[in-house]
C-alpha cells in the first residue's frame, strides 16, 4: 500500500490552495475589462457627478463636502459589488459548465476551497476599492481619521460579500436567480444603506428601518473610520459586521463542507 503512495510525486499540501487562488486571480485578470475596468469607470462616473457637479450644491454633513461624504460609500460599494461578483460568478459558472468536478476529484480540502475563492474575491474587491479611492483624490481629499479601522472594515466587507457570493453561487439554479441577488438585493441594500445620504436625515420611521439593513453598518462604520463621524459608534458597526461575516462564513463552510449542490 505504502509502496503505491511512495511512487506518487511529492505532495505539497498548500499547492492545491495556492493553485486555486492563483487560478481565480488569473480568471478575473483575463476578463479585466469586465471585472476591473467597468466597475472603476462606473464609480468614476458617480465621483464626477457628485464630486465635480452636484456635490457643491448638496451638504449633508457639517464640516465635510458632499464629495467627502459620498466617497467612502462609493469605495465600499466597489469593494462589496466586486467581492460578491467574483465568487458568485466564478463558482456558479463552474457549476453551470460542470468543470467544478475538476476540483471535486482533487485533494483540496473544503477550507482551502473556501479560502482560495474568498481571497481572490477580496483581492478583486479591494483592488477596485483602492482604484476608486485613487480616482477620488482628484475630486476631494479624505481626512483618514482612523486608517487602520477603515482598512479593517473594508477587508471585513470584502470577506463578508465573498462568502455571500459563494452561498448564492451554490443555491442559485440559473442565471436569472444569480442576477436577481445582485439587482434586487445587493443594489437596493447598498443604495438604501447610506451611500448617498446619512441615515440621520431620514424621517424617524425610515431611519429605524434602515437599522435593519446590514449594509448600513458596513457603510457607516467605514465612513466613520475615514471621516471620524457617523450615525453609529464604530464599535457597534464593527461588531454587527463581524457577526454577519462569521454567520455567512459558517453557512458557506457548511454548504461547501457537505458538498451541497456540488456533489450529487
Amino acid at each position, binding site marked *: *500500500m505504502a509502496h*503505491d*503512495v511512495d*511512487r*506518487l*510525486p*511529492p*505532495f*505539497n*499540501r*498548500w*499547492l*492545491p490552495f*495556492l*493553485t*486555486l487562488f*492563483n*487560478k481565480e486571480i*488569473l*480568471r478575473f485578470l*483575463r*476578463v479585466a475589462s469586465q471585472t476591473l475596468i467597468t466597475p472603476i469607470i462606473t464609480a468614476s462616473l458617480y465621483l464626477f457627478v457628485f464630486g465635480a457637479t452636484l456635490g457643491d450644491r448638496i451638504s449633508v454633513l457639517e464640516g465635510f463636502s458632499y464629495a467627502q461624504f459620498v466617497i467612502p460609500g462609493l469605495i465600499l460599494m466597489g469593494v462589496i459589488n466586486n467581492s460578491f461578483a467574483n465568487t458568485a460568478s466564478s463558482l456558479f459558472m*463552474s457549476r453551470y*459548465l*460542470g*468543470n467544478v*468536478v*475538476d*476540483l*471535486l*476529484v*482533487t*485533494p*483540496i*480540502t473544503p477550507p482551502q476551497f473556501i479560502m482560495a475563492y474568498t481571497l481572490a474575491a477580496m483581492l478583486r474587491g479591494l483592488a477596485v476599492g483602492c482604484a476608486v479611492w485613487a480616482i477620488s483624490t482628484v475630486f476631494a481629499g479624505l481626512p483618514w481619521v482612523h486608517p487602520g479601522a477603515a482598512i479593517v472594515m473594508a477587508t471585513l466587507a470584502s470577506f463578508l460579500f465573498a462568502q455571500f457570493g459563494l452561498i448564492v453561487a451554490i443555491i442559485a439554479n440559473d442565471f436569472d436567480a444569480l442576477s436577481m441577488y445582485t439587482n434586487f438585493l445587493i443594489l437596493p441594500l447598498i443604495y438604501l444603506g447610506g451611500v448617498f445620504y446619512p441615515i440621520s436625515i431620514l424621517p424617524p420611521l425610515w431611519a429605524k428601518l434602515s437599522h435593519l439593513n446590514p449594509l448600513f453598518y458596513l457603510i457607516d462604520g467605514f465612513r466613520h473610520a475615514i471621516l471620524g463621524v457617523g450615525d453609529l459608534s464604530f464599535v457597534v458597526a464593527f461588531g454587527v459586521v463581524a457577526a454577519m461575516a462569521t454567520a455567512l462564513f459558517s453557512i458557506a463552510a457548511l454548504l461547501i463542507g457537505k*458538498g451541497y449542490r456540488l*456533489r*450529487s
Partner: protein
Amino acid sequence: MSCLALDIRNLEKNYGGPKVVDDLTLSIEPGEIFGLLGPNGAGKSTTINMVAGVTRIGGGTISIFGYDNRRDYRTARRLTGVMHQEIVIDNFFSIERALKIHAGYFGVVDDPAWRNLLIDRLGLRPHLGKVMFKLSGGLKRRFMIAKALVHKPRLLILDEPTAGVDVELRHTLWEFVREINTQGTTILLTTHYLEEAEQMCDRIAIMHHGKLVALEKTTDLTARHGQRHLELTLKEALTVVPDTLAQFSPRLSNDGLALELTLATDSVVGEILDRVRAAGIEVVDVDTRQPHLEDIFLQLTGIGAGNGGENHGA
C-alpha cells in the same frame, strides 16, 4: 490493509428513487485493465463518480490502494485520475496552463518532462497556445486524457473515453493506455464498444439496473457464457429451415442464402454439416464464429449491446 487498487464493497446509491447502484462489490488488482460494462442507466458512471469523489456514497465503502475514499480522501484522490464521460474544461485557459493548474490542484509541482510527454503522445503540441473553447471535440478529449494523467495517478479511470471520437484518437488512446498500464498504472474503463473492452480488458464486470450480473476474466466470460456459431453460405435460397436443425436455433438471413446455427459446447461441426447435407441443403462456404462479448452482454442484460437501452442518467 488491502493492497487492491480498487476495493468496492456493498456500494449503494439512490437519488431519491430506485437504487441506481445496488449492493455492488468488486475489486481490481494493481496493474489490471478492468472493464465495467452495462447499458445506459446500469449505474456505471454513478459508480465511477463515487470512486472519484464527485458523487456521495449512499452506502458501502470504496478503498483505493487501501485508502478509504471518504476517511483518507486526500490520499485516495492523489492516487486516482479520472477522465469523465462529459467534456469538462475551463474555457479561460490554454492547454498548457490548464495542465499546470490541474497538477497544482493535486499538490504536484509541475513536471515539464511528464507534461510534455503527455502533450506529445496525445498530439496536443500544435494546439498548446489555443484557449479551450477554440479546440475541436477530439482535441478536448485528448486534453482530458492528459488532464487525468498529469498528476501521475496509480489508478486511471476512463469513463467512455472513446464515445464519439474518431478512429485515430481511439487508436492513439488505446495504445497509450496499454503503455501506461505496462508501466504500472491500473486502468478502470467503461465503454460501449464491447470489442474494445474484449481486446483491452483482463477482467470484465457487467452491471445491469445497478447490480453486478457478471464479473470474470474476459476469456472465461466469453468461454463460459458464449456460444459458438456456425455460419453457412447456401447455394440456393432457403425459405423454411428443416425441423432436423431446429435444436441449433437456426437463423436465416441474406434472403435465405445465409444460415446461422448456434452450437452447444460439445457440438461437432462435422456431424452438424452431415445433418445439413442430409436435409438436402447445399453449402458453398462454412465459417465458425467464436463467442463475442456482445453476445454475452445481450444474454446477461437482455438489451441490445450499444443500443443505448433505457437511460436513467447514471
